[in-house]
């Protein structure tokens, strides 16, 4: 029992609003949008239903031990009892029923929360490219690109297309939506929206080398007019063109990449204007050259496809 209590307490603690410093939210138990809200609701639902089959064990085992212990038995002793038809029906029947109920809910929630399903008309289009150890976000319609910062307007659905230009990664923005793998030469997608303003932490959850633990980014859900101001706001003066991209592709975290680009070394966001609208497609296209075909040169462009070079700047101490 104490285990159960401990676990409930732990979940409650994890669900408690983030403490003073915690302006950045990092759990789906404090959802900022409808997808994560539904996911955390489904979590509690599954725990609740499954308890029906678990509680008998957690309560029954200590009771049986107490009642039937060899030293001081209380109950009857029926050593040859080994079968009861009624009990068999219960032992198999109850789990079957529970699984039927759970399977229904599973079907419902999986279909409803399919990350490929748009949340509404006219979603904001954003593309994400996973690099070693940072994310490049491209707003093709707005003509800007950022590194490790994803700003979205509250209320408008977002369609995020993902790929990587290195090994497989997995993008998770827990307070907004679940994760999906991003793989080189392929694209996957996440659809979500924010229902309240705030800052969430996004991250890669698939280990990809020594900078993995620092591959985090900020997701800022802004009120629509604030989002417009953000779009018009100052940028770094850089343009995401082939040369800039090749530098970003090096194995570095954001701060080191910024010094490689000649900017001040900091974790602040990097906002650039977009050189070409089809950066995302070109990065995917690098992995689809056909031997000596006409697009063979594509593989060498935009930073190439091999092991990324290390950052020029040694990771600062």
């Amino acid at each position: 029992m104490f285990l159960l209590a401990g676990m409930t307490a732990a979940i409650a603690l994890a669900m408690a609003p983030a403490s003073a410093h915690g302006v950045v939210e990092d759990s789906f138990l404090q959802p900022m949008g409808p997808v994560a809200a539904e996911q955390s609701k489904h979590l509690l639902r599954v725990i609740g239903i499954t308890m029906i089959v678990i509680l008998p064990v957690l309560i029954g085992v200590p009771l049986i031990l107490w009642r039937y212990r060899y030293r001081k038995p209380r109950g009857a002793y029926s050593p040859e009892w080994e079968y009861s038809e009624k009990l068999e029906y219960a032992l198999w029947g109850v789990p079957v029923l529970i699984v039927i109920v759970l399977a229904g809910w599973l079907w419902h929630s999986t279909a409803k929360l399919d990350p490929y399903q748009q949340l509404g008309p006219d979603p904001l289009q954003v593309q994400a490219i996973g690099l070693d150890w940072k994310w490049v976000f491209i707003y093709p319609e707005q003509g800007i690109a950022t590194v490790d910062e994803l700003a979205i307007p509250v209320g408008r659905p977002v369609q995020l297309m993902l790929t990587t230009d290195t090994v497989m990664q997995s993008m998770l923005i827990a307070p907004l939506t679940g994760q999906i793998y991003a793989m080189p030469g392929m694209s996957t997608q996440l659809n979500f929206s924010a229902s309240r303003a705030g800052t969430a932490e996004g991250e890669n959850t698939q280990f990809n080398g020594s900078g993995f633990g620092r591959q985090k980014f900020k997701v800022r859900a802004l009120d629509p007019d604030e989002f417009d101001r953000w779009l018009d706001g100052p940028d770094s003066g850089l343009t995401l063109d082939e040369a800039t991209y090749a530098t970003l592709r090096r194995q570095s975290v954001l701060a080191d990449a910024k010094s490689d680009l000649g900017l001040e070394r900091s974790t602040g966001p990097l906002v650039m204007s977009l050189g070409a609208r089809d950066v995302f497609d070109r990065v995917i296209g690098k992995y689809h050259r056909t031997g000596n075909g006409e697009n063979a040169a594509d593989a060498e462009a935009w930073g190439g496809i091999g092991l990324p070079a290390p950052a020029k700047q040694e990771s600062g101490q």
Partner: protein
Amino acid sequence: MSGQSSPTFGNLDWEVTPYTDLLEHVNSSTIIGAGAASVLVLGAFAGIALLTYMRWWKPLFRDWLTSADAKKIGIMYIALALVMMARGIIEGLVMRAHQATALGALDKAETGLVAPDHFAQLFSTHGTIMIFFVAMPLLIGLINFVLPQQLGARDMAFPVLNQVSLGLTAAGAGLVMVSLLIGDFGTGGWTMYPPYTGLDYSPGEGVDYWLWAILISGVGSTLTGMNFAVTIFKSRAPGMHLMRMPLFCWTSLCVAIMLIYAMPALTVSSAMLALDRYAGFHFFTNASGGNMMNYANIFWMFGHPEVYILILPAFGVFSEISSTYSGKRLYGYTSLVIASMSIAVVSFMVWLHHFFTMGQSAGVNIAFGIATMIIGIPTGVKIYDWMATMWRGRVRITAPVVYLVGFFLLFVIGGLSGIILANPSIDYQVHNTTFLVAHFHNVIIPGVLYGMLAGVHYWFPKAFGFRLDESWGRRTALLFVGGFIFTFMPLYVLGLMGLPRRSPTFQDPDFLPWMYIASFGAVLMLAALFCLLWTFWKSYRHRMSLSVPGGDPWNGSSLEWSTPAPVPEWTFASIPKVQARGDWGETKRAGDPWRAPDSYADIEMPANTAHGLIIAGMAFALGFAMVWHIWWLAALSFFAITAALIWRGMRVIEPRIIPARQVEEEDRRFREYVAGATPITRADEESERNRGVPDCSEFAG
């Protein structure tokens, strides 16, 4: 590793040891690396010195390494597992200590006990060791020891093949161990997903160590599966119908079938990755048409059945001990058989739940999610059946029962988190986080580890002739339970808070308290390990007062309790004729169970051979040579293995004959001992009066 490869030494040079790193940078990470290598070297020297000082080389070679006796092979498997487990637990502690000191900032290099790359090697070796070289040898060892005795057989169907399997497993374990001293291990986790582990992103020997350890030990495990299956189908005693077999034999059969069908998938995925790395293939590369999704699919076609390969033998053990220590028949035998078989079959249909997040359609995820939940049904039924077995029984709270109770209470929590993870919509959130790490430890530690340790405690007297100290056994079990709770419950919370698994650093200070609790838990796990070793040592010192020559210390009902303890090489003086399920119990109920057989005959046992040892040595050399690109040695050892197989195949090999007189003499001595001993009731089970001769009138199950 420097650029040039020499024809003699391949890529080996003097800079591959962790001592070079230590000389270049002195910090906690390199000190730990060099320390671990030193422990390995000193441990090896200490072992050699001990064997030499005690003059144990000859007995070791004659009685153990060249023995084809399944019982001895089983014990060697378990010894190997315990050595590897010591390393695995210590690595776990280092990882927990690292994360407790790893709070960092985004613009600062990672801090903490070990460097990120070192941390990555730790979680990779920890996972590889715990799955392939602790859990697998534990269960294969236990099955080897118990299965033939329960079936009424003298040995496995293929005793020498069995020896070869052990040799291949040990060779794989040896490769992982050597990577401590020579070179680095891979950093891709125990699953070694490409393209990260492809040649582009992981040049060097690390991934190759993993590949060859897996390829070599994988062949051993496949052969083991075949051996178990044939033994169960062909070597049962007369009258031992399938539906009379103890549950442990049934779960062994499930394991055998699953090993046969699942292990080849791992061999295939590893061989494909090896071709990518050695021969420039493009199965899983980023470009040129490679696709890592195929790796994930093939790997998990092995990987999911694997977790049930691990858990089912433990379910077999729990079936035996819940009945024996409750003094009661096993409830729902048929149900348990059906449940075990369903688990074995359904486990092949759920592999996709390891990557719900790969981008396939919701429909596919729904199908695999529901299939995953369906496995929960037979698993749940089994737990209820064991509870029903204890209900209206007379339960003795021995060490195995403490493990059993820890299993009950913790495993259902692991089942709950399993059901949670089976929901793709929630899995999207907690996949790849420490929630997942907590989940699989929550099923593997209370399931596999507790089950195997309970089994070791239960059958230990059969192997060595004396019981293990019950008090220390219970303390060990409690420490493993407490250690588990403190280490892994916090990881559930951290996972829900969004901490990815395998994180060398994190930035949220709210994680810290949970990290401290988990580190404390890891200390408890280490204490549990010491407590386990202490239990062995203390019991060994008191082996006279704990000895149970009568051979039936727990008043059991299956065949293995009818023989002396320690059990003789030939196990049964004459092969029993089985009349009923729980035959030994029925014999006790009928009275005069220890009646001598009417006559004795010569017994054929497999002759000792160094075949397995030679293959193991050559396989290790082959793996090591491939890892370091020492091509001449690789070719040489490959041909040596082939030659050894052919040579043995061409020879006529005579079995060893144990003369009827010797069998009769020893058997009579055993029966006289039993006749002269005072039978004890279960009240005296833990006392010195327990000489392995139970009061049969008390047997009621």
